[in-house]
């Protein structure tokens, strides 16, 4: 995947390239963040709680998935397991960065990983393969997206405040709609249909007697287990999101 060299450079120029290079992703991130803010308000989070969540967790898909399990008081085990499940793919992104980031001091690589996301990771790896290996690109691009994500969460929460009854407006369906859009994107890739189908079927069955979040967690585990068992040499371009 990466033909570029191991990086020893981590410069202000690289940081600036990251900040500028990620501009195209700002509108999409802002919209996603707004939607999260609206949903967080509907799930009962206060504005500072929602902003703090976005700033500290910084993972859109996982944050949305935890809202599905959110209640008062918060079911800690369920939301942590949901976050781990949604973010398991970051293990792969981090691993993919090893050849590029492996030579950096920990004081540069580990802070960069805090703002690592699907989009800036893909961008950075493409640049690295092209021989532009300044590692500060990830920190610069990730920082911009982080700022946009946090600000958009606050804006979305404020917008949710002026909206009326979430159920009447279909806001409670927004979460399902977002995940359906994500699924439509992922299902085009080979090997994704089976874990998706197992997840759907087992969650519907479990939902009848255990309800959320266990239907979600058990469904996700069974789907992933089946994918691991049925894996064959030639199969599997997974999700890239």
């Amino acid at each position: 995947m990466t033909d570029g060299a191991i990086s020893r450079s981590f410069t202000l120029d690289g940081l600036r390239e990251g900040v500028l290079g990620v501009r195209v992703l700002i509108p999409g991130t802002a919209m996603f963040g707004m939607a999260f803010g609206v949903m967080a308000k509907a799930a009962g989070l206060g504005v500072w709680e929602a902003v703090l969540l976005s700033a500290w967790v910084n993972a859109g898909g996982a944050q949305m998935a935890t809202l599905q399990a959110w209640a008062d008081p918060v079911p800690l085990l369920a939301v942590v397991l949901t976050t781990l499940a949604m973010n398991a793919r970051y293990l792969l992104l981090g691993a993919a960065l090893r050849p590029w980031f492996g030579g950096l001091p920990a004081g540069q690589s580990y802070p960069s990983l805090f703002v690592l996301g699907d989009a800036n990771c893909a961008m950075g790896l493409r640049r690295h393969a092209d021989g532009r290996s300044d590692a500060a690109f990830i920190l610069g691009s990730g920082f911009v997206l982080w700022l946009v994500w946090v600000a958009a969460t606050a804006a979305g929460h404020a917008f949710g405040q002026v909206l009326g009854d979430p159920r009447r407006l279909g806001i409670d369906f927004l979460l399902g709609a977002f995940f359906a859009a994500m699924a439509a994107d992922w299902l085009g890739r080979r090997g994704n249909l089976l874990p998706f189908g197992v997840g759907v079927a087992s969650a519907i069955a479990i939902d009848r007697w255990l309800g959320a979040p266990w239907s979600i967690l058990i469904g996700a585990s069974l789907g992933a287990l089946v994918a691991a068992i049925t894996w064959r040499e030639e199969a599997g371009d997974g999700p890239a999101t």
Partner: protein
Amino acid sequence: MDLRPDVLLAILLLGVASYACRAGGFFLMRYVAITPRVEACLRAIPVALVGAILGPVAARGGPPEWAGLAVVLLGMRLTGNELVSTIAAVAVVAGGRALGL
């Protein structure tokens, strides 16, 4: 400023869990390689998770929710735009509920 202790604790733990995923793969690659089967499993987790979220949404929903899901899939096929597809679906659900479906 209204911050509840259980919510704060949840936020703290979720952030730690997220960073552990981001840094964990990078850290572990120093010591072990990820086998293709493990990689297939890790890639499948979010896909199965999304399926497990959507299954009960469809099963518990009625005609407005089913129409909403169909609109998202159609919108993604026609436009490929998540935001457009999502907002159209929410509008359909709100409309369906207003009609008392």
